[in-house]
């Protein structure tokens, strides 16, 4: 550091953690080869004022202006904790008792620990195993786990590089991402209103200004605008929420917890028991039907099947009218509050805000609250000014026009070198398959240098939805409904129009496909199934199955599924590489930026791209050449920039110097009708993508394909229990497990990322340091729930059901409804008895195994039964005697679970 405290250099780096897009940028100062400071990126306002048309929203005499910088999140600010984490994997590692030429000891995965090996040896083992598995069983015997939500980077993305190499080898079995975060919307709401690709409202154009002008009340239904957007690098929803309040718009939060948004923005908090929203929604419909307070004319012209819905709500179908009293017993909200909410909604102009849905839309039978929400919006004239379903994050996603007026003049698409979601050829028509990860014709024209690197690769021939991978491995087969479970997210055509895909949900699928092998090897670049997916303990069982001969993980950190790998390949962070970034919805403008490495790559870590190149090298020069096209990282940055189309506006030389190209705001988007206004005005001319083109209160697709499905009937129902799930307080299981467990996206983590950042771990809602000095994941309990169990704040407790036990630290708070235990998902695993007992607080280890419902291939990770009890000293001592090795693993005082705990030398 020089005397005047100026950094030796500064780099621009992404701080979004929602790959594949790199997202929001920040400034990273470095001196003496270390990162010294991470600060917000400030726009050159002189430039943006003159050239970029800064936007503003005007409503009710007040103005909301585009920010002058990109506000950082704590994720970005605390990232030194990630780069320098004691949990970093710095060298290639081999599981100590795994011998590819002898005993493999799969039963010891998650227990045995690691020794350092050379890159040469590691790459050779991987190449040899890939060849052996391919020769013995065929290409499909390798399962590639590689999808989404790691660090955002482009020229060497977190996810998809192994897919690229495996494609060159002839194929693999794809772990297909199920629609996590959108479960209920995709498998439910889509059948009501289409709204491709994920069943949340599209289009979102100009919704925020429209709400600011026309809405009286906003419902944040299971939505936390102070949490979910942060992972995408967005702080703007915070300021928008403050602004809505200034405008006199009421905010009503409906959720079991006083979430972080409700804590500061709510005018009214209605606590509801987890996963019981459908009961309250049905009662709201009942009040409107009996009091005639819905828009009958709108329903007549815009809806199909309303009579069947009415028959169910009024009890004509099953003899049970869905009265507020009926609902109150299920959802825990007083009868008079349900009625008041229904009347407020009918009287006022109401929009509903979401951070994709959160736990509200990720429980058992989540199709039902999702569908009912759209129907309630419909009964109040969905699409009319001020009546929308609005996303509070990811404004660029699947949007031709943004909900805030900052649609760019042109969209600078950065190519993706690797495709983690490459669909199986022939499963769905080409025009529907996800094309985001290919070089588009216009990109190819701009940067012909990339043509060879992006030569089309053969598609995998079979896939397993991620939520069924454990069962598929352990049962040796799997069946489900739904084709291309994720990749139906097509590129929009003119006018943001997408082809309908909901009919593909009714295709029966199998694994293995005829003539193709079962899985015998796993290669993962997204090792977080245990901590982020359904029934994590079953994943542990699958990873320890002798069916899996080899498990390779490439990752920067020793976390989550990584401790089950036989070979671990060290990956560097985004702060240690060249890249080209795109900030699509974090600040005031869309921008493209050049990332220079802040520091040298730590240890022997490599980018994800180069990790696979190492293995390609061992497979033979033909693989290496095809995989890399012998193009350097710097050249990929250069040509990727060319492909974005920005070079026509700013030369490479100027871009290399300025590091940022800010795209001007499109001046013509202000008059684009907000949301579904066109449909509202003329449903015949502006049809929805449902089969009838209307809002389907009874789904014509479900009527046609699965009319007798008791768990997702044509008209949404309250489903007390069914073949898939028995997770209600009314059930027999509730006698043993009497609490409903809720799990949100965490405030201090992005899924499983950033659990090791010491500075957030000091915050009370992030970790609870108990009397044994260990930082436990908090389980929130209402004082009443805690008192009934003799639990005090800070106690070590066990959260358990028949699927296993998770140790947590009691966080006793008035912020949660009684009868509920709340643990955020994504805390790192610290397996004591792998598959049975975890000390790290990975609540997903005990979430339900079953999918969303019988024919809906999503996961259910919130709203399930558990019991919470205090861990006695004797019990803890007994565990320590039973599992001495697990308890003796080193735990870092500041960062928790760490690499040193797993090393055997």
């Amino acid at each position, binding site marked *: 550091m020089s005397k005047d*405290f100026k950094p030796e250099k500064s780099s621009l780096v992404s701080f979004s953690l929602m790959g594949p897009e790199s997202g929001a940028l920040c400034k990273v100062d470095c001196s003496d080869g270390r990162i010294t400071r991470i600060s917000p990126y400030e726009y050159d306002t002189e430039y943006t004022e003159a050239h970029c048309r800064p936007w503003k929203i005007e409503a009710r005499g007040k103005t909301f202006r585009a920010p002058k910088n990109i506000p950082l999140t704590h994720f970005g600010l605390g990232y030194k904790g990630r780069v320098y984490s004691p949990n970093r994997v710095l060298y290639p590692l081999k599981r100590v008792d795994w011998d590819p030429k002898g005993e493999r000891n799969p039963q010891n995965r998650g227990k045995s620990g690691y020794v350092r090996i050379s890159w040469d040896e590691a790459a050779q083992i991987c190449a040899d195993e890939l060849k052996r598995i391919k020769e013995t069983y065929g290409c499909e015997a390798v399962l590639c786990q590689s999808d989404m939500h790691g660090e955002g980077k482009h020229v060497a993305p977190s996810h998809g590089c192994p897919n690229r190499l495996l494609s060159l080898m002839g194929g693999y079995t794809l772990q297909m991402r199920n629609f996590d975060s959108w479960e209920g919307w995709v498998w439910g709401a889509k059948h009501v209103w289409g709204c491709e690709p994920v069943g949340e409202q599209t289009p979102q154009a100009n919704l925020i200004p429209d709400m600011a002008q026309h809405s009286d009340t906003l419902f944040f239904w299971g939505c936390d605008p102070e949490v979910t957007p942060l992972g995408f690098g967005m702080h703007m929803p915070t*300021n928008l929420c403050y602004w809505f309040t200034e405008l006199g718009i009421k905010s009503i939060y409906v959720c079991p917890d006083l979430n972080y948004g409700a804590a500061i923005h709510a005018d009214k908090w209605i*606590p509801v028991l987890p996963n019981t929203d459908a009961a309250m929604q049905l009662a709201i419909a009942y009040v409107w039907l009996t009091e005639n307070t819905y828009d009958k004319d709108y329903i007549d012209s815009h809806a199909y099947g309303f009579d069947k819905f009415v028959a169910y709500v009024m009890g004509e179908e099953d003899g049970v009218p869905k009265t507020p009293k009926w609902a109150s017993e299920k959802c825990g909200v007083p009868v008079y509050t349900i009625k008041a909410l229904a009347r407020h909604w009918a009287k006022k102009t109401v929009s509903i805000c979401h951070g994709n849905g959160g736990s509200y839309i990720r429980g058992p039978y989540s199709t039902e609250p999702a569908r009912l929400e759209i129907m309630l919006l419909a009964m109040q004239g969905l699409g009319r000014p001020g009546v929308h379903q609005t996303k509070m994050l990811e404004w660029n996603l699947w949007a031709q026009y943004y909900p805030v007026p900052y649609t760019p003049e042109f969209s600078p698409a950065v190519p993706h070198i690797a495709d983690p979601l490459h669909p199986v050829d022939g499963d769905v028509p080409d025009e529907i398959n996800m094309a985001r990860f290919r070089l588009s014709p216009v990109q190819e024209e701009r940067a012909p240098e990339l043509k060879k690197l992006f030569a089309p690769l053969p598609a995998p021939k079979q896939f397993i939805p991620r939520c069924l991978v454990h069962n598929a491995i352990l049962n040796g087969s799997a069946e489900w409904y739904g084709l291309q479970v994720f990749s139906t997210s097509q590129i929009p055509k003119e006018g943001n129009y997408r082809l309908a895909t909901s009919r593909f949900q009714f295709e029966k699928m199998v694994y293995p496909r005829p003539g193709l092998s079962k899985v015998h090897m796993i290669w993962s670049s997204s090792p977080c199934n245990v901590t982020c997916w359904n029934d994590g303990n079953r994943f542990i069982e699958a990873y320890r199955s002798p069916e899996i001969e080899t498990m390779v993980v490439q990752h920067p950190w020793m976390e989550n599924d990584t401790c089950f790998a036989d070979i671990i390949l060290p990956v560097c962070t985004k702060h240690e590489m060249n890249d080209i970034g795109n900030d699509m919805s974090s600040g005031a403008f869309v921008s493209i930026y050049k990332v220079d490495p802040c520091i040298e790559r730590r240890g022997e870590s490599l980018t994800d791209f180069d990790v696979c190149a190492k293995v390609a090298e061992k497979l033979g020069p033909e693989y290496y050449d095809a995989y890399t096209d012998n193009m350097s990282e710097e050249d990929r940055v250069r040509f990727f920039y060319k492909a974005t189309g920005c070079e026509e506006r700013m030369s490479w030389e100027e871009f290399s110097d300025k590091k940022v190209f800010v795209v001007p705001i499109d001046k013509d988007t202000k008059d684009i009708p907000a949301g579904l206004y066109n449909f509202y005005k003329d449903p015949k001319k502006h049809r929805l993508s449902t089969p009838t083109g209307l809002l389907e209160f009874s789904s014509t697709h479900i009527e046609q394909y699965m009319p007798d499905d008791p768990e997702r009937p044509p008209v949404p129902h309250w489903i007390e229990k069914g073949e898939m799930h028995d997770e209600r307080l009314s059930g027999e299981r509730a006698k043993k497990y009497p609490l409903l467990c809720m799990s949100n996206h965490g405030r201090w983590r992005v899924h499983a990322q950033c659990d090791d950042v010491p500075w957030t771990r*000091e915050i009370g809602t992030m970790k609870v340091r108990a009397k044994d000095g260990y930082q436990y994941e908090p389980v929130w309990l209402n004082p009443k729930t805690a008192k009934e169990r003799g639990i005090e704040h800070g106690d070590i407790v066990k959260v358990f059901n028949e699927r296993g036990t998770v140790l947590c630290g009691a966080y006793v708070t008035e912020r949660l*409804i009684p009868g509920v235990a709340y643990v955020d998902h994504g805390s790192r695993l610290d397996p004591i008895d792998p598959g049975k007992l975890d000390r790290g607080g990975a609540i997903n280890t005990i979430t339900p195994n079953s999918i969303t419902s019988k024919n809906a291939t999503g996961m259910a990770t919130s709203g399930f039964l558990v019991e919470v009890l205090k861990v006695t000293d004797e019990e803890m001592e007994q565990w320590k005697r039973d599992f001495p090795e697990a308890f003796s693993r080193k735990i870092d005082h500041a960062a928790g679970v760490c690499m040193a705990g797993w090393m055997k030398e």
Partner: protein
Amino acid sequence: MSKAFLIDIARCSGCHNCQIACKDEHVGNDWSPYAKPQPIVGQFWMKVIETVHGTIPKVKIHYTPTLCNHCDNPSCIPACDVGAIYKREDGLVIIDPAKCNGCKNCISHCPYEAIYFGEDLNIAQKCTGCAHLLDNGRSVPRCVEVCPTGAITFGEKSELSKKMAGAVVLKPETGLGPNVYYKNIPGRFIAGTVFDPVEEEIVEGAECHLSCGPRVWNTLSDDFGDFWFKDLPEGEYDLTIKAKGFALKLIEAIDTAASDVNLGDIPLEKQD
């Protein structure tokens, strides 16, 4: 010339950016002669305190960012036997890490608990107002720079005073002349919901009349039956609730000395 902080509690979202940015700036970075590195965890030169008010479902939260008050008459300076603590011309109070002998006197003399002891370095450590940055071209400390809502502002006290109407300092009774000012610290609330238990309906428009000695507050219940009295001083209150068709309801001796009071869901008795 004197620098001051002005913190608007009504705009603090509890994001903790200020707390984390302080660590980003000072952990592992040696800014001598202004400050030695902060240890990786355990010190909070900027600390966000969370306060939860009320009981379910009438619960609110407010966050208070706290830091060294850079007092006009700092108690830490005379407490230091070796003269390691000094007040700069711009008002910032600095502990000279080279002079500090680790006696800890200053720590016990600071009523704001803003000084920490660095075991490894054997020195007292605290907020410097990022003086090393202010002296080298930056206009605000890191905690201010990263606040996404503009809740924390920093500048010349004379400049800030324009925005300081109603601002208060913490522990004014110490008389040390603290320079961290707070706006919109919420007072106590008394809240509840009125309903008709027979019809299972909320009661809207009930006249809620609150009194504490000679002082009175009035409000009406809203369309959820809710009534709120916010920003009340601590004290003992009486509440009467008058609604057409219902018996007068009197709730006496509501004590807000210890905490906010959620009176819960209050049934009103029907009366002809």
